[in-house]
């Protein structure tokens, strides 16, 4: 039975009480305790640096050539914090409320409240590290608004917020490396967890340069390995982002929670052809100023600039007047799909809608004209000035769009379409971020706990850093305080030997298949099944078909995959094969979870369950629970339900109208 270990007491005092009563480890003992951190994105780098500062012996692993490259770096728009610097009514409670509501009432109150409580500390910490956030002329921090909220609480560094936050955490990590508190293993991939007497005691990792397997002991293992969006093949994730570490933990006994909760981001550059290897996000912050529309007439092939105002359908503003273009991501994505499916899509593929900056350019231009006191400015002059303002705010995003599409977004509206972006599901964790395996923790996107069925913009960076800087340093002590009595076990222990053997056997099996089809071709096929049948809209028939198709694909993979190159050398095809094999298994579980959840909520939209207006229809009576799946052998899982209890917030149908 899963125990979320949520502390008793009133919601706003839970975390304070927990910190006041959790066990501590004295500094001399910390030096004897070893912690393994897998992944060095915001969650991993912040955790590794902070635990190193506290005096633990830390080993950090990443598959990239440097910890600075983790995919947190690609986050564009910003990071939320309940600072209320804008005096616009924000508070810890409001951030907590928005996050729970945005997640369509499928997240834990206690975890989300804690997240909201520490959000302000994150900004302070990052400023102290020298993160160059955007500032106003008075020298104070600047904020902007983001989807799903009505206050300005998002801190940012142009369109590169993730990069700047990650570099802050990376520098903290490099400092601990130089001090000898953290040992860094880059170009390494975790391939299994070593268990002794029901507790994690280390990992097996593969050196991706030499191909050699390594045994690493640890009193605890922190999985900070991000999300699994690449199960769809095409996503905004980095090419290397994968589920492997989390999946290995799952197969060793860690429950996987709400795997079907995936976020499809509304503003991405559309697919241009079969060669497409990944999709690029255009920051949600663009929805602050851009207006989204399609032609009023089906199949209208005119150039967007030739379509007059009255023949355009600003469908978000029409359907959701209160939030307009700033509705949450799941709502915006579905609305785009609805228009395209109904035949109003634009561009050659007809799978796109317009994101138009013409109105914003004119509006900003007029403000500049008035600031500069230019009484008789012509329309052209206004546009020139407006473009300058837009360039300063979004220039890097516009440049990126132009490089990819060859079109100038200052002149022609951008074409956008939803794409897989984030996974709210992940390893099940309790309040302490411990998975259902003793000694294994999951932080950041790798866990499931904070975003429910839909994540609000600018909340992923917040959660990754909250977990790493401010949660795990307390909760891990509560576990490790009892581990000071356990001596490190030798890596010659039979558990290490056996686990390493099972890893090397699997690699040999994969390599020995010697089939005809490339790893990439399997990954593409898996992605297509997932996107078509477990994507933005799902139904029982499609999901049932998908499960059968994935099982057949798995069989084919394990009998016909072709992996060139050797085992004991740098071999990116072998690395990828290992990951795709795990994605295939995960894909099946996602469909199973989506089939089980007979309701629509957040990013999970079951066509059978919708309101007459086409909005998601939740079923709180039957599905207000976390679906935590235990691995029970090949294509077999047992479902455990963790009920979600709302003590403070009253769940209602989300209304953004």
């Amino acid at each position, binding site marked *: 039975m899963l125990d979320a270990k949520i502390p008793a007491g009133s919601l706003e005092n839970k975390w304070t009480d927990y910190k006041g009563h959790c066990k501590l480890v004295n500094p001399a003992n910390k030096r004897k305790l070893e912690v393994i951190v897998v992944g060095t994105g915001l969650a991993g780098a*912040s955790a590794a640096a902070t635990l190193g*500062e506290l005096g633990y012996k830390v080993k950090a692993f990443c598959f*990239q*050539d*440097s910890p600075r*490259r*983790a*995919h947190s*770096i*690609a986050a564009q728009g910003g990071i939320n914090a309940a*600072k209320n610097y804008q005096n616009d009514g924000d508070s810890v409670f409001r951030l907590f409320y928005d996050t729970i509501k945005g997640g369509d009432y499928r997240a834990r109150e206690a975890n989300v409240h804690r997240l909201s409580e520490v959000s302000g*500390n994150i900004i*302070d*910490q990052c*400023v*102290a*590290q*020298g993160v*160059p*956030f*955007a*500032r106003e*002329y*008075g020298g*104070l*921090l600047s904020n902007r608004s983001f989807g799903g909220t009505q206050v300005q609480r998002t801190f940012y560094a*142009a369109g*590169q917020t993730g*990069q*700047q936050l990650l*570099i802050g955490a*990376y520098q*903290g990590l*490099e*400092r601990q*490396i*130089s001090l000898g508190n953290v040992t860094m293993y*880059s170009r390494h991939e975790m391939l299994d967890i070593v268990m002794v007497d029901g507790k994690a005691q280390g990992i097996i990792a593969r050196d991706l*340069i030499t191909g050699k397997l390594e045994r690493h002991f640890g009193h605890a293992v922190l999985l900070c390995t991000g999300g699994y969006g690449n199960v769809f093949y095409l996503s905004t994730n*980095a*090419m*290397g982002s994968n589920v492997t570490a989390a999946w290995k933990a799952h197969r060793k006994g860690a429950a996987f929670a709400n795997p079907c909760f995936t976020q499809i981001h509304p503003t991405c550059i559309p697919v*241009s*052809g079969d*060669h*497409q290897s990944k999709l*690029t996000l255009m920051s949600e912050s663009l929805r602050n100023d851009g207006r989204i529309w399609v032609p009023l007439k089906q199949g209208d092939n005119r150039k967007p600039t030739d379509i007059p105002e009255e023949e355009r359908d600003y469908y978000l503003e029409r359907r959701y007047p209160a939030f307009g273009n700033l509705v949450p991501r799941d709502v915006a994505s579905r609305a785009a799909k609805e228009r395209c499916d109904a035949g109003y899509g634009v561009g050659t593929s007809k799978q796109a809608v317009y994101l138009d900056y013409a109105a914003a350019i004119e509006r900003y231009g007029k403000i500049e004209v008035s600031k500069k006191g230019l009484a008789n400015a012509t329309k052209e002059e206004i546009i020139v000035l407006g473009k300058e303002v837009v360039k300063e705010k979004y220039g890097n995003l516009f440049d*990126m769009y132009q*490089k*990819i599409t*060859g079109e100038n977004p200052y002149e022609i509206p951008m074409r956008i379409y939803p794409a897989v972006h984030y996974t709210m599901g992940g390893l099940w964790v309790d309040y302490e971020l411990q998975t259902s395996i003793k000694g294994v923790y999951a932080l950041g996107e790798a866990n499931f706990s904070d975003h429910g069925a839909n994540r609000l913009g600018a909340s992923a960076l917040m959660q990754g850093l909250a977990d790493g*800087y*401010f949660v795990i340093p307390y909760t891990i002590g509560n576990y490790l305080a009892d581990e000071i009595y356990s001596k490190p076990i030798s890596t010659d222990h039979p558990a290490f030997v056996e686990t390493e053997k099972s890893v090397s056997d699997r690699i040999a099996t994969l390599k020995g298949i010697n089939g005809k089809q*490339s790893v990439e*071709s399997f990954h593409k096929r898996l992605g297509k099944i997932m996107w078509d049948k477990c994507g933005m809209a799902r139904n029982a028939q499609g999901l049932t078909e998908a499960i059968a198709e994935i099982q057949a694909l798995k069989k084919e993979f394990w009998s016909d995959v*072709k992996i*060139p190159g050797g085992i004991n050398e*740098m071999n*990116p*095809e072998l690395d990828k094969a290992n990951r795709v094999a795990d994605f295939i298994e995960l894909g099946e579980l996602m469909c199973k979870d989506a089939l089980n959840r007979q309701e629509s909520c957040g990013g999970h939209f079951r066509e059978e369950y919708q309101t007459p207006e086409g909005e998601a229809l939740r079923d709180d009576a039957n599905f207000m629970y976390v679906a935590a799946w235990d691995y029970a052998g090949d294509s077999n899982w047992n479902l455990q339900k963790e009920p979600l209890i709302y003590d403070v917030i009253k769940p209602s149908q989300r209304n953004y109208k």
Partner: protein
Amino acid sequence: MEHKNINLTLKVWRQQSTVSKGEFVTYQVKNISQEMSFLEMFDVLNEQLIQEDKEPIAFDHDCREGICGMCSMYIDGKPHGPWQANTTCQLHMRAFNDGDTITVEPWRAQAFPVLKDLVVDRTSFDRIIQAGGYVSVNTGNAVDGNSLPINKNDADASFAAAMCIGCGACVAACKNSSAMLFLSAKVSHLALLPQGDPERQSRVVNMVAQMDKEGFGACTNTGACEATCPKEISLSNIARLNQEYLLASFTSAE
């Protein structure tokens, strides 16, 4: 946008490992859509090699949106290829014409040894950061983020330097394989902020010493680094670095 499909000849550097001898191998790719990115063209080539029972070309890449700094191809004599302010992953095939021959090499620098084919070891950059590229502040020590106003111009200039993605194109472009643009970007990022002030002297001295130890060459202010930088990190950062270094050498207590 008008686009067409093109055929290309590729001369690619192949090298089995750090110690083995490398060579150029010529490949033909056909029917490449100009809407592809350069790395997607390499995906097509690799798929072709796998089908021909040959080993695919190893190359570094991850985010494919120009921010992680992992991709690192030296294309027709230019790091990241012909486009200004661009990374290899964002270079699109519109930059090339039907029938072109394209030469692709790894970064060439003593401090970036080749690991395989187009993949190089850039951990020397991490070690330069370890030498002082940070503010020594432990988690939990911070005061309120707005307690210290920072002049917007300084914050913006600091950000402009902090945009460095650590790809190493500056080193690859430099005839001396100098890492001065990379190092100066970090020194500037932190020196322009009050948070970086207390350690500014030891930082610059230690980072420069580490750079020399790693085997990067000297800077002669040619500016090839700035011209090739995907994030347009300015050469003026090197001037600031020199100034910081000079000041630190005059006034350092150590």
